[in-house]
């Protein structure tokens, strides 16, 4: 691994550290891209380097694990002498695809899949080893995706769209969706059994009743009920009932 690429990869782990409503991930992306731009000060001029750093820190928002692709591609384009407006257009064009691909692949696939497996493991009595397994498996995919994205962008520059069409990405998206559904489907009854197990019969009936009412309320988006609001409401009511019932 080239040292600047390694530094960029490390900095990418903090890419959302300065997330804000104006440039969103822009500052973090600029910080991550900067090591790859340092050569410009030597190969071209200090002014070219500063202009590239300024562009790198402009507005950007995508999935944090895939930001590296835009970072690598933009840095490569700067080295290739691509006109500034085209570099800006490339960054803008990558926000949407990298965001939606990452959301589908990671937030709605890989993460709930691993979380579901961990819930199954804990519910079956595997204990804290499940949590170690969750961290190891999840982060194997996480780090591999970050590294692949950075390298793909750095290798292709303005032709980075080719990387997004790779069959392996499509296959991964096709596998994690059903895997997530299977794992979470299994996790729900097992977790309910694990949590409800120690309660006596009447309390288990209460668990089932609250879960049923909550599911109906949470499935009606017009009501604007969220898990947090429902949880707070139900727990507040339970405190009053619990206080009165001695």
């Amino acid at each position, binding site marked *: 691994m080239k040292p600047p690429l390694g530094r960029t990869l490390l900095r990418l782990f903090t890419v959302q550290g300065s997330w804000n409503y104006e440039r969103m991930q822009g500052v973090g992306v600029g910080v991550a891209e900067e090591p790859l731009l340092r050569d410009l000060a030597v190969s071209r001029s200090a002014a070219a380097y500063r202009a590239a750093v300024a562009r790198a820190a402009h507005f950007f928002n995508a999935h944090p694990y895939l930001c590296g692709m835009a970072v690598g591609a933009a840095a490569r384009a700067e080295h290739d002498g691509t006109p500034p407006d085209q570099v800006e257009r490339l960054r803008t064009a990558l926000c949407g695809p990298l965001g939606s691909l990452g959301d589908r692949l990671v937030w709605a696939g890989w993460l709930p899949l691993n979380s579901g497996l961990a819930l199954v493991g804990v519910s079956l009595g595997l204990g804290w080893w499940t949590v170690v397994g969750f961290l190891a498996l999840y982060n194997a995919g996480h780090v591999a995706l970050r590294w692949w994205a950075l390298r793909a962008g750095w290798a292709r520059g303005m032709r980075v769209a080719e990387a997004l069409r790779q069959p392996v990405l499509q296959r991964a998206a096709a596998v994690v969706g059903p895997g997530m559904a299977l794992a979470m489907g299994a996790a729900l009854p097992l977790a*309910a*059994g694990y949590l409800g197990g120690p309660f006596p019969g009447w309390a288990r009936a209460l668990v089932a009743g609250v879960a049923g009412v909550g599911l109906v309320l949470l499935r009606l988006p017009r009501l604007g009920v969220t898990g947090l609001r429902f949880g707070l409401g139900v727990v507040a009511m339970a405190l009053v009932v619990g206080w009165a019932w001695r």
Partner: protein
Amino acid sequence: MSLEQQGLLLVWGMLVGLDLASVPQAMIARPLVAGVVAGAILGDVGTGLRLGVVFELLQHDILHLGAVRYPEYGPATVAGVSVAHAATGALGIGFGAVVGLFTGLLGGVSLHALRRLNTRAVQRASDALEAGDAATLVRLHVTSLARDAARAAFVTAVGLLLAAGVRGFLVGTLSVRGAMVVAAAATGAAIAAGAAGTLRLVGGRATLGWFAAGLLGGAAGAWLK
């Protein structure tokens, strides 16, 4: 609970809060992980796991899409475990949930405030950023990271204070039956949130089939267990 344990919980809560969005997003912020480590700090991994499962299910109600605002359940689980540990077995889940849900709400509000502070800092530095000043860029980023660490520590500290209040006021005041009502209600709410969140993710007919297969398998497993 000793002062050392409280200090360790505070540091752990800060790391968990940082992991959520800033660094390194390795998912130690997931309630299951946060809960187990908090439980280990208190010498009670079982309670950490149980409350971790409750908040992990609640976490499934949240999708981290775009700039969406959401509660923060990592430090909330840490604070929740510190109070759940004080009650016996499953009864502690209710107390832990009371503390955790309020701390999660505070965490969400604090994230929004942090992002507004970051926005102001970026606006102040915009001239230097437009000039391509790399030193300013890095300083801005590191300062924002430090700000998030302070925010996460603050949220955890408030959660731990709330936990101390609940330990002193609620635990022992509610009857066993009353504590069980709270625990059962919190458990039901978590299952509802987990199921609703999963159903939102399971979109198409093909995925629904896999979900149904998992549900049948899980139900059989729970019954056999």
